[in-house]
């Protein structure tokens, strides 16, 4: 992932005119939190806010985008911590003294944690949530990046155009023989299996669990299961699996490094990371202010350029290079082909279904 970092400075195409256009219009609407740096400086100067994320190149991208900008604008210091561990976060919040002020969490944890009142409500007087698309706003978190599960394939095994172009084809062992790599997790596998079995996206939820497992049975013998992202990449690159389920950013990364992989956007399943504030943090307002900074288009564009993680603020696309847009999940044409995971459903069913998934693997 380090070479991703190395590209950072040169690849960010923050055209000055574009930048002024976006920030200008934002300021005109009174949206730009940093419109009056003098005020912000006096309020948060000398204070500290701890940001916890997932480490590696991803957190580095977050650091050099909104974290450093926030520190510069306000005179506060943003301390990086992590990697995020949900058990640690939970224990820390239950203990009453969370040391993380702002945390990057996945959508499933956001929804399950809300039940247990683990996060503070987003203070809309500080965070301008309307900068991000409505579907990425939540009462207890603000979406910061979007990514998706896609069909990825090795172009030496399936030439582009003759690759599986839907989940139904992905499951079709006759037309597309050979091993395929699957995510070792019940979500997204149930949705994918149901789509493969002919269920329409709009009728997916509530999931027909038995039907999904029955469909999964049909490819179990030809499946390799991956648990880490680098594994999902390696399986396709080495041709261990000719086609597989993989995150869009991982194909982008592999292709950038010269691997011959292709991506299919049809029926991509999207997921969101949110920034949240743990219940009981000492300085809630600075935590909210950091989240507000994250929503700005220039920072989201920067993260997208570095990681191929899609912005939640559509204005960011004005700053993203046209060669990158086709790789991003929220680019309108890609978003149209895909769907957002329904965490309302998963928050009530994940525990039982995760266990069922393990049982299915062992059966």
């Amino acid at each position, binding site marked *: 992932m380090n070479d991703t970092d190395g590209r950072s400075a040169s690849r960010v195409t923050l055209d000055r005119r574009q930048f002024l256009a976006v920030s200008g219009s934002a300021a005109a609407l009174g949206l730009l939190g940093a419109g009056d740096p003098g005020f912000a400086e006096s309020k948060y100067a000398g204070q500290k806010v701890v940001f916890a994320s997932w480490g590696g190149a991803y957190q580095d991208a977050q650091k050099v985008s909104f974290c450093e900008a926030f520190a510069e604008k306000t005179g506060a210091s943003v301390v990086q911590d992590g990697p995020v561990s*949900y058990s640690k976060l939970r224990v820390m919040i239950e203990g009453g003294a969370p040391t993380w002020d702002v945390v990057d969490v996945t959508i499933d944890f956001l929804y399950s944690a809300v039940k247990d009142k683990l996060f503070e409500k987003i203070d809309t007087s500080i965070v301008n949530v309307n900068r991000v698309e409505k579907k990425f706003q939540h009462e207890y978190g603000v979406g910061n990046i979007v990514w998706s599960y896609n069909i990825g394939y090795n172009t030496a095994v399936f030439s582009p155009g003759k690759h599986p172009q839907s989940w139904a084809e992905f499951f079709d062992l006759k037309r597309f023989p050979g091993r395929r790599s699957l995510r070792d997790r019940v979500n997204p596998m149930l949705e994918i299996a149901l789509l493969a079995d002919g269920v329409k996206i709009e009728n997916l939820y509530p999931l027909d669990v038995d039907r999904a497992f029955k469909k999964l049975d049909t490819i179990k013998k030809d499946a390799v299961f991956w648990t880490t992202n680098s594994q999902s990449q390696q399986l396709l690159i080495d041709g261990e699996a000719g086609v597989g389920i993989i995150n869009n950013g991982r194909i982008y990364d592999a292709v950038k490094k010269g691997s011959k992989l292709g991506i299919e956007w049809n029926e991509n399943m999207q997921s969101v990371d949110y920034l949240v504030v743990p219940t009981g943090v000492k300085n809630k307002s600075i935590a909210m202010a950091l989240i507000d900074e994250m929503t700005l288009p220039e920072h989201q564009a920067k993260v997208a350029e570095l990681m191929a993680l899609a912005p939640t603020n559509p204005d960011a696309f004005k700053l993203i290079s046209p060669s990158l847009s086709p790789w991003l999940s929220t680019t309108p044409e890609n978003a149209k082909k895909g769907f957002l995971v329904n965490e309302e459903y998963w928050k009530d069913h994940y525990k039982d279904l995760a266990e069922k998934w393990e049982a299915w*693997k*062992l059966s």
Partner: protein
Amino acid sequence: MSIDKRSWLVAPAVALLAVVFVYPVFWLLLRSFSDPYWGIQNFRTLVDRPLYLRALANTVIVSGSVTLVCLLLGYPLAYTIANAGSRLRRLLVFAVLIPFWTSLLVRTFAWMVLLQQKGLINQALLRLGLIDQPLTLIYNRVGVIIGMVHILLPFMVLPLYSVLTRIDPSYTSAAASLGAPPLSSFLRIYLPLSLPGVLTGTVLVFAIGLGYYITPALLGGPGDTMIAQLIEMQVSELGRWGLAGALAVILLLGTSVAFALVQRVIAATR
């Protein structure tokens, strides 16, 4: 020399263990009976759902197989080291210790590269004409056992080696001079004398193997889930501390029983 007078020497270690080990373990054990409410429901869940019993069986079988392979590979290796000249001995001990110096994750990924269908081992075998079809060496139990043996072999070799070096070579010379063929002198003299090392190595490898989860997750197939993977899932994904605690209790009990058995056997051989 009285051990009691010196017992304060171990006080810091005991205090550290109490804080960072005994307390958390006790806390987890407590939760297995108290979370989400008091009772034995967590243990009942483990018995009622085939998933947990299967994973438990997997754990014992995989760990047992790994122990056996380690013993078969480790005994001749330890014997060679114990009877080698000092230079070769140093080299071999070094080679045995190498796995300790690289991270478990790196080693596991290295095995993925070696064992896969287009990996080094399959390519070599294909080119030598020994096989026509690539072997499935990974994403199944074979992969798990290979990966775990590599990591756990030192835990077998080192205790064995330390016992074997202490076996007086004059015993076997005496047996030979009295007309015992090599095999019977090995079986009747050398092997019984090496038994404490065998048992220590066996129990170490078996007990450590019971708790493995990264290797089976990365090198195993869908049927190779081990109990530690389920504990990890309960804690970090599902937040079910009670069930995790119950699984941990079972694992701890299994390990303790293994240790107790070996203690007894060692005591009996003396």
